[in-house]
């Protein structure tokens, strides 16, 4: 249905923009193992994006590439958190921690989606996101409980990420409309808070207390970053309309 397609579009856009951000680390990571790890994660997440976008596209007779390359900024439905620039490695880990814990909870619930395709994509993604979460947790521990500098940087990174956390849990009319095909984001909050608190506690870090950014990605209202992301991502495809690659 249209609603389920719109729902899949959201999840696909989150994954696509995150993959785009993460992939920038490849050949720039702090060590070779991390070039591989972040590349792996980016690749997994891109795979989720492709699955969700392909599925969404069925409803409108569009391919994953039609959706990725030929929509304008205000047609994207991604969350603000995935648009945030990579910053230093600490910021990327903080963002990964938040997003992968969120996605882990979300995909777990989506296993019970009344929409078979959504449930199947979530099932496949879940195993990978479990690894992403573990990767982020391990690094949060190392950075939080590593050196003085890494502790400071990691806490700073959390403060910078936190304004974008609340938006992930906002419910809206589409969530009502998709019903049991989807998951009510607000229902994930308590488990998210508990998991994050436990990780940050072990990492000797604290949960930031900063105001949320208003958000609006689900309505196509984005931060000033998305325009730049899309300009880069779409530049080549758009120079060759109708071409195949």
């Amino acid at each position: 249905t249209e609603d389920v397609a719109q729902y899949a579009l959201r999840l696909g856009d989150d994954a696509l923009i995150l993959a785009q951000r993460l992939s920038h680390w490849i050949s720039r990571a702090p060590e070779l193992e991390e070039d591989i790890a972040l590349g792996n994660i980016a690749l997994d997440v891109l795979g989720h994006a492709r699955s969700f976008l392909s599925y969404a596209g069925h409803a409108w007779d569009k391919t994953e590439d039609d959706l990725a390359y030929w929509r304008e900024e205000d047609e994207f439905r991604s969350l603000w958190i995935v648009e945030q620039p990579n910053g230093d490695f600490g910021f990327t880990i903080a963002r990964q921690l938040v997003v992968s814990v969120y996605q882990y909870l979300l995909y777990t619930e989506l296993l019970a989606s009344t929409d078979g395709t959504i449930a199947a994509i979530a099932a496949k993604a879940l195993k990978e996101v479990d690894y992403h979460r573990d990767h982020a947790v391990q690094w949060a521990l190392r950075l939080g409980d590593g050196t003085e500098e890494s502790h400071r940087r990691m806490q700073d990174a959390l403060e910078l990420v936190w304004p974008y956390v609340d938006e992930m849990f906002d419910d809206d009319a589409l969530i009502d409309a998709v019903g049991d095909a989807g998951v009510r984001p607000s229902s994930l909050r308590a488990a998210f808070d508990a998991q994050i608190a436990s990780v940050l506690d072990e990492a000797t870090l604290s949960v930031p207390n900063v105001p949320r950014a208003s958000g609006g990605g689900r309505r196509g209202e984005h931060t000033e970053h998305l325009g730049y992301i899309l300009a880069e991502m779409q530049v080549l495809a758009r120079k060759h309309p109708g071409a195949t690659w």
Partner: protein
Amino acid sequence: IAGQAYFDRIIAEDSRIEPRDWMPAAYRKTLVRQVSQHAHSEIIGMQPEANWITRAPSLKRKAILMAKVQDEAGHGLYLYSAAESLGTPRDVLNQQLLDGKAKYSSIFNYPARTWADMGAIGWLVDGAAIANQVPLCRASYGPYGRAMVRICKEESFHQRQGFEILLELSNGTPAQKQMAQDAVNRFYAPALMMFGPPDADSPNSKQSMAWNIKRFSNDELRQRFVGMIAEQVKVLGLTLPDPELRYDEVNGRWIHKELDWQEFHEVIAGRGPCNAQRMTRRREAHANGTWVREAARAYAEKQAAKAAKNEIGAA
């Protein structure tokens, strides 16, 4: 028997030297240099391709390219391990790269200017690398040969992907086809130069061949490669930028245009298009990662200390 005699016998039998075996200092030194240069090439070689990940024109191509660049990081890891088994730790090797004391394959000092370069690099650069590396699977040093087996398998996959990119472009719009031809034009000669200078100017090769590291001469490998791409380019519907290229039936060898060895030496000397850029990026990544590596080390030490304390407590 041990020492030189054992080593000589292994080489004579074309068997394998393993890390704990005795080996001549010069053999060890040659191998460390070659294996680490090879590892560095994988690492630096990520850059031209990483340059197109965020702009790949379809999601499928983006995924394939990401996987490929990531494979290269993996190859770097195997090769550093092989080099480490010869007694030089990875951070020493890495420092040599950062200090500009170690070389990497000159081909990666050429820029990847267009998407079609992802095709040309896969088809020509990986193709040349495979031609070089397949014989290295039988290199006398065990860990190197085994790393090569694994790497060659993935490289041939990469080469096929590069070929497919070019094929798709060649069968695409006129602009796409031109992009493909342009990329082939730019990478053809540099790829041929990847095999190194003509045999007459390659004095070190002989010793490497005697040690069963190298199996074929530069020119032999180049011949094999030219023959292969001369056939494949027809399938692509493109041309090689070499009007002189032909097979000389009489001598049973390929004639190709004179390569610009002055350019080759300029690039090796650091005066290529991207030498400075590649090193700057590598050094920046390393410098930006310092605090992260320090944190990981400090954390590991803390954990080890805790574990030790628990053991003592339990004892």
